[in-house]
């Protein structure tokens, strides 16, 4: 009995002592009393007698005596106790939040919270786990290719596929040795070697993935400082010229090129989300690291770009993977390349460089270099256009510009 019950119990006992005894003028006869006491009344009649007995002390006392002497206690002891009356949904729901239940629930909640905090606090932290959380991007074979990319760039900066791509060299890719990076930069600047470009069109399909990754590893550049910009432009123009020469040598089919453009656009759209997520995780730390290095007079701009680009390439989605047709895959990988300029990533499509942010649904504005419109563009767009020769589609502040 709860304390509340005890209070009412005491009050009722006092009330029973002090209350006037009630009785009615009409009393039950002996037959009715006996029938009630023996529980032999029909159900419909019982309510009337219960009502009378609740108000008539004399009849109630007689019926009680009759029932007890008739062995009612024995009868009811042998009977099965009723189940608790069915409660409403709200009563059941309220029962879940009753204090006796809540005290256990509160204890369980505290235990859970403590266990959760302990788990979070004691869990071993590693950056690797965070990188691993980024999922399939890092699991792509690109990680195996990236280490060999600089070497391949040394011999063929113009989309020359690597001879081999062994996982054993993966560790070298993450090597931050400035000397090696500088060497790579020097190699990147070295003039193209047409002799090694010749086998490109006839490259076997077995090395398609490797080729694609090698193209991705081709160096890209941030906006150059004033002293270097012209040389950089010339260099890139030479690279572009090499590419166009290569394309001419390949004699590409126009229809196939159009198909490749469509496929590449779709792939870029699909990869866009993955790139954004990966960039959010990786780009900021890399930029911070680059800024710190610059302040310290550390690695050069090219080294920064290389390391950043390498990471960006790592994070990039796998467009060739999403292409289904073997022919399409082959032709696209052979002809397309990627580069990063001014924080934008561009994919080679046909004779144009297309910003990966570009979507076919975007309205595109065509602008010629040197025109007034071109001069009116933001400096960032102009910087990109200066670094990339030929046709380039740049997405700038949500708008697409085709710069010729």
């Amino acid at each position: 009995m709860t304390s509340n019950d005890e209070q009412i119990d005491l009050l009722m006992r006092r009330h029973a002592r002090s209350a006037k005894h009630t009785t009615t003028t009409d009393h039950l006869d002996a037959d009715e009393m006996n029938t009630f006491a023996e529980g032999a009344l029909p159900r419909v009649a019982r309510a009337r007698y219960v009502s009378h007995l609740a108000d008539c002390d004399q009849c109630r006392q007689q019926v009680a005596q009759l029932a007890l002497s008739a062995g009612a206690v024995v009868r009811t002891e042998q009977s099965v106790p009723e189940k608790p009356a069915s409660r409403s949904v709200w009563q059941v729901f309220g029962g879940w939040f009753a204090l006796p239940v809540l005290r256990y629930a509160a204890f369980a909640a505290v235990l859970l919270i403590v266990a959760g905090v302990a788990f979070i606090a004691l869990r071993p932290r590693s950056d690797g786990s965070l990188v691993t959380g980024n999922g399939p991007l890092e699991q792509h074979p690109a990680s195996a290719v990236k280490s060999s990319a600089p070497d391949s760039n040394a011999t063929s900066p113009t989309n020359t596929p690597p001879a081999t791509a062994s996982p054993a060299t993966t560790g070298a890719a993450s090597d931050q040795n400035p000397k090696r990076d500088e060497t790579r930069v020097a190699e990147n600047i070295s003039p193209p070697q047409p002799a090694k470009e010749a086998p490109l069109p006839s490259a076997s399909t077995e090395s398609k993935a490797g080729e694609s990754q090698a193209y991705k590893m081709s160096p890209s550049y941030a906006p150059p400082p004033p002293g270097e910009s012209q040389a950089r432009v010339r260099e890139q123009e030479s690279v572009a010229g090499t590419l166009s020469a290569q394309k001419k040598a390949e004699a590409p089919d126009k229809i196939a090129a159009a198909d490749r453009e469509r496929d590449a656009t779709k792939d870029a759209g699909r990869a866009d989300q993955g790139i954004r997520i990966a960039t959010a995780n990786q780009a900021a730390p890399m930029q911070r690291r680059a800024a710190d290095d610059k302040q310290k007079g550390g690695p050069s701009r090219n080294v920064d770009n290389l390391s950043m680009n390498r990471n960006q390439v790592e994070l990039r989605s796998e467009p060739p993977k999403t292409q289904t047709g073997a022919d399409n895959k082959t032709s696209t990988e052979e002809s397309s390349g990627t580069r990063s300029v001014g924080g934008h990533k561009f994919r080679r499509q046909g004779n144009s460089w297309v910003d990966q942010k570009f979507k076919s649904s975007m309205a595109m504005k065509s602008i010629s270099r040197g025109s007034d419109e071109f001069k009116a563009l933001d400096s960032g767009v102009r910087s990109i256009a200066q670094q990339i020769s030929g046709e380039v589609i740049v997405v700038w502040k949500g708008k697409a510009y085709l710069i010729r």
Partner: protein
Amino acid sequence: MNLTPKQFDELIIAGARRLLGRAEDARSLNAETLTQRLSAATEKYVLKDDPSADSTAIDKFLDGLHADDLCLVVACERGDQTGWNDLFERYGATVRSAARSASSNEAMADDLAQSIWAELHGLKTRDDGLPAGKLAYYSGAGSLGGWLRAVVGQLAIDQHRRQAKLVQTEEDSDLDRLAHSDAEPDVHAFQSAASPEELLASDLAAADVENALGRALGELEDEDRLLMKLYYFDGLRLREAGAVLGVHEATASRRLTRIHGEVRQRVETILMTEHGWTKSEAANSLAEIASQLQTEVEPMLTRNAESRLQGSPAGG
């Protein structure tokens, strides 16, 4: 669907035949001799509360009657001497036992038992020539032994009333007055020494709670109110109160707990709506009065226990 009189009569006749068929000793009765009694019992226990009762309900009631007891009573009423002998033989002990329970001494119990048989047989004669005894009121719905105990109990009360009307001494009147004064709400019983203002406020609060408690009790369902009356007013144990209601002690206990909650809620509602109390004031007042009652009751229980110990052989 209401039955036509003809249908009702047919049901009664059929029921009487089944009843005679069930009886071990039909005492040479036929169905027609039982129809009037069966009709009266059906009207009383079925049709009065459910005038549209169908034949199934009526048949169920008729088939639940105590066939042998009813045949014995009807036979006695019709002057069957064998029936009377059987009645004395079977139920003489029951009547004596009931008379002893209802009487304060053995002589009064014997007088009561003798008068019972006279009442059963009837000293007057009805219009149909049969004696106007109490046997005519037995319906057969309950057992004959239980009915005889009830008759003895009622007769004892009637005799007590008659005697009380004739002789009421001055001492009895004084006792009644004393009892009445004890029964008055004793609002001072649980009050300790306090200032007159506090006493007055406490008096008023206790009176409000007392009135609210009475009203809350009166607003309960009949079944719940009966349980409360049996338990608190008649002093029955919970097992006995449950037995009167035909339920197990555990069921009665659960009901009582639920009723406590209802009473508390009703009392608080009355105090809040009609006396302007806040919920906390009502709860605090109930708790305070209960605690004061507790302190009042505990010494009484202790005194009672001590007196029992002193009065018992072991204790004395």
